[in-house]
Structures are given as C-alpha cells and as structure tokens.
C-alpha cells in the first residue's frame, strides 16, 4: 500500500526527510509545507517537483483529504497546537518534534508497537541514538538503576526549533530512556559544538551496572544493538571499544560498583546537510521506518 504523505516544516529535518521519502515506494510525498516562501527547504522541494506551499500546518488541515499521513518536523510548540487537528482530520501524525503527545517509538526497539496510534512521537535525535543502547543494557541485566546520555551535535545542524525547545529535548529523551530503554532513573544532556569544520554527531551512553552484573553479556548485547541500528542508519557506530569503569557511583538509582560507557558516533548519509549532521539522519531514517511499517501494516489489514 502506498500512503500519501505531507511533511510540515521545511527546516533541516523536514528537508532531509523529503529527500529520503522521495526514494520510498511505500510513502508517496506530495507536499513539503513551510511558512517561509524563501526557505531553502521549499526551494529544494520545488526543484524536485514536490508541491511546496508556505501556509504552514493550516494548509495541511485544509487539504486533509489528500493525505493519509503527516510528518511534523516543525517544533514541539507548533505540534502541541496541531496534533488534535491532524487527528480530527483523519491523518496519522508522525511527530518528529519532542512534543511527545503520542506514544514514543524508537525504531530499533518498539517499531511495531504503536502502528495503529493516531499520533506517534519519534522522541528526539539523541533519543533515537541512545535509547536502543539503554534497552540493550537493560535486556542483559536484572535491573538498570540509572542510565544517562550525552548528545553533542554540530551547531550548524541544530535549527531554531531545537534551540528554542532544548528543555523539551532533554525531558523527552530522558523519559524515553526510562519508558522504552527500561532504566529506573535517567538523565539526558545536549551540547552544541560550533567547531568548524563541524563535528560529527556524538552520543555517549552511561549505564549503571549493579553488583553481580555479567559484564560480558552487557557488552555483547550492546554490540548486537549496534548492528540493529546500523541496518537502517549506516553511519551509526561505536567510536571506541566498550569499557566498564569501576566506581563506586552514587547514581540517582542507587550506589553501583560499575558503569558501562558506550561512545557512539552517528555519521549522516548526507541527504540534505553534509555527513556531520547524523542527528538529522537518525531521526529521519527512524521516521521513514515507522512510516513504512505503518504502510506494511495497513496493507496487511487490507489483504
């Protein structure tokens, strides 16, 4: 089944998603909707033969009959105002902002859990990169008392939506580490680095390992997860060997003797911004996985 799709938001994420969606045989992109007629994203859309209105989310509501799905790449603030309208208009919304109105989906962990939900939240780029590792640690231990992630992205790859919603980024990411990753307590940190040439997106996951943990099982589970994520984000990789460091560490989830340190790099595919912007890539690749899974699911229902 081919689903008719609109992308709202012609910034970095929306434009990158457009380029990926044009390659899909399950998701048919018919409009990239922005608010600035002079934006680079809308110009790209026109050049690629995609309808590029600049009347914002209201345009999508007005043309709801033309779309099965809307991918929202605006900002948490905008999504909070529109998510009900999308639902009422009968469109499934895939939310690429940290608004977190619908159930959260991390492509490598719970892709197929919410395929019938009217609104699916893609958490954050850092969440897509690190929640799989929290989950990988958790499935190898009895208990993950605390998990922490640090995401560093190049300043050039963080658009105004991210910058104005930085608390939403950390809160939503932190919640995903618990709800989907399985940690009892969590923290998320984001850093913007302006170095030129821009740095490739980096993510570090620290997992608290309680007494009696089988460290080898934890490491093996993490290596397996690296393979799962890199199957749809080819630039996703462990930058260094995994290390278990000795504490003790007085974490919010209690005192633990060790921590595992997972040093990740996410190199982008270079679809819109250059390859340093792995943060765009992991988000848009995950959203594509969700969109295509929904298309497959509906085809299954129809058949």
């Amino acid at each position, binding site marked *: 089944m081919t689903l008719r799709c609109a992308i709202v938001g012609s910034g970095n994420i929306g434009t990158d998603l457009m380029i990926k969606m044009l390659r899909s045989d399950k998701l048919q992109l018919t409009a990239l909707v922005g608010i600035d007629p002079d934006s680079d994203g809308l110009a790209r859309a026109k050049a690629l033969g995609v309808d590029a209105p600049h009347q914002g989310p209201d345009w999508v509501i007005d043309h709801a009959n033309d779309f099965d799905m809307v991918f929202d790449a605006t900002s948490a603030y905008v999504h909070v105002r529109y998510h009900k309208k999308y639902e009422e208009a009968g469109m499934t919304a895939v939310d690429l902002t940290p608004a977190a109105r619908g159930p959260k989906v991390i492509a490598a962990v719970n892709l197929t859990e919410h395929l019938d939900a009217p609104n699916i939240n893609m958490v954050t780029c850092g969440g897509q990169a690190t929640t799989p590792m929290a989950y990988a640690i958790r499935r190898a231990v009895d208990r993950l008392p605390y998990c922490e992630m640090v995401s560093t992205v190049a300043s050039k790859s963080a658009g105004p939506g991210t910058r104005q919603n930085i608390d939403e980024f950390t809160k939503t990411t932190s919640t995903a580490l618990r709800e989907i990753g399985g940690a009892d307590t969590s923290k998320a940190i984001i*850093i913007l680095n302006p170095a030129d040439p821009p*740095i490739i997106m980096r993510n570090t996951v*620290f997992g608290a390992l309680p007494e009696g943990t089988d460290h080898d099982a934890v490491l093996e589970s993490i290596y397996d997860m690296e393979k799962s994520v890199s199957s749809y984000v080819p630039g996703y990789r462990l930058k260094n060997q995994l290390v278990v460091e000795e504490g003790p560490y007085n974490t919010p989830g209690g005192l633990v003797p060790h921590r595992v340190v997972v040093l990740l790099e996410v190199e982008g595919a270079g679809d819109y911004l250059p390859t340093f912007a792995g943060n765009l890539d992991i988000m848009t690749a995950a959203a594509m996985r969700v969109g295509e899974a929904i298309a497959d699911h509906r085809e299954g229902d129809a058949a």
Partner: protein
Amino acid sequence: MSAKAADYRLIDSTLRDGSHAISHQFYAEDVIRIVEGLDNAGVKVIEIAHGDGLGGSSFNYGFSAVPEKELIAKACETAQQAQIACLMLPGIGLADDLREVRELGITVARIAVHCTEADITEQHIKVAKELGMEAIGFLMLAHMNSPEGLVEQALLLQSYGADTVYIADSAGAMTVEDVRRRVNALVGALEVPLGVHAHNNLSMAVANSIAAYEEGAKNLDGTSAGLGAGAGNCPTEILAAVSTKCGIETGVDPLALMDVAEDVVRPIMPRQQVIDRAGLLLGYAGVYGSFLLHAERAAERYGVPQSEILLELGRRKVVGGQEDMIIDVALELARKHADQEITG
C-alpha cells in the same frame, strides 16, 4: 579611578565553580560556614550549584555528595544580607530547576552557554524574569569568540531580557589585551551592565579582572582561595585586596575575605590551587577548566599522559559539557600508544 561602591559588584562562586575542585563533594556544614563568612565580609551575591550548574549531578560531570537543592536551601537560610544566586546551563539543567530554586529563595539566575550559542537561552532567561529573578546571561569560553562575535551574542542575551551580561574566561586562556578588547567592545554595545569571570590558568585572573573593571565591566567573579575549575578562579580575597589598593570602592572587607579563605575554605581543599603543568596547559591550549580532574582520572585509568589528553581536547575544539570526550580521547590515545609499541 573615581569609581563608587555602587559600581562594583563582586559575585562569589566558591560554592558553584569551587565545586569542581572538590569533585562536587560539598556538605551542608561547608555551605553554612562559607555563606556566613562571605556574608559577613559584605559579598553581595553568592552563587551555589553543582559545578556544571543546576542538574549537573551526573555520570558525565560527577555526582554531588549532597543534592544541590538541599545545599541551596541551606545557603538561602544562612544568608543575612547577600543574595543567593544559581547557575544553569540549558541542555544540562531545566527551566523547571529555576522554578524550584526560586521557591528556595534564589533571586539571581545565571544562564550559562557556550559563547556562540546564546540563542538557546531565551526560554530560560524569560522564565527567570517571570519568576522575578535577576537574569544574568553568561557566555562561556569567551576566548573562543571575537569581540564582535561576543557583541552579537551579548545583544541576543540582552534582547531576551538579561539584566546583566557576563563573559567567562572558562579556560583561563585570555591575556590582559584579550580581555580589554572584548570588554571594550561589549561595554560600547550593551545597555545592560557587563561582568567578567576569570580563571587563573595563565596566572592572569586578578590582572584580567582589574583590567576588565577599568574598561567598564562592573561585575567581577571570584572564589575563596581560588577554589575552582582548572588552576582555579580569580581568588575573591586577592581581588578584593588588589581592588582596594587600586582605589576602587568594593563594598567588601578584604581582611574578612582573607579569613574565610584561610580558616574555612583552605582546610576543606583536597589540594591547594596551584598552576601546575596540567593547569597551565588548559590556559595555554584553551581547554575548559572543569576537564582537569576528569582528565587526571582518565589518564590514570587508561595509562596515558594527562597532558596529551588535554592537548588533544584542545585540538578537537571540545566545548564545556563534553566531558565524555575525555574518555573517548583517553581510549584513542591508549590504542595509539599500544600500536606504537607493537610497530616500534
């Protein structure tokens, strides 16, 4: 100099920046004694938080021994005349943290950000203002931006409602001339007052602070006995003594500040703040001062020289908050050393 006392404001950050030097292991009795001492000496603003700001307690920056909000409550209860300030970095702390500490009695919020990323502070500065706090925009690692670039960033902070703008020499990397040029440009462009936060990695902290004041930065930061990240901060008691000798009306008592440094702070310092090789390298290579102790631990753990870690962090243009990269660099260096042994 014809400065009046009202011009000069000293903000003491012993209980925030000093927290780095003791790996965030402050206890309630330390807080009470330091606040009492500074308050008696006439310090008008005392800053307290985890070294990396509200919410900084973490694997990445080190866990606080005592939850910072308990310590903040103690500081607010103890102070008689001083205002109690906090610091937060968007991306690490939350606007919700500001709401909580406002309830505890914090009246000054410093919103700190890398010196090129001011636009991530808008929501936090606005929340601080809505809560009725003084909002100070705080541009870190200011040596990494030009005077013109800093002006652009400072104007953003001012436009969000910042009551005061600070530049922080977080790597202790600036010379007197570096400070003068930046302060001069900022004072000329801003309507709000300016402040300078100096570190002593190049032994320039006091001289830079005095130069900043002469150029028009009326807010200066210090920590008692220089307790702080890297080779330490501008020592409050020395700054007060030198300012007084320069004829500046400071409103603080240098002798009382010397007593706090000697009798209260030095006894709890795990080591005195000296400019050893690692500290000097931070200033020389322009590396965030808080990396010092983390790099020392990683060097020990992975058997690589601390100085190599710091220099590589400088080459990578790592910014404040990227402490995880210390492990990354140490592992890479360890691998490189192992390869060399095999091939050599």
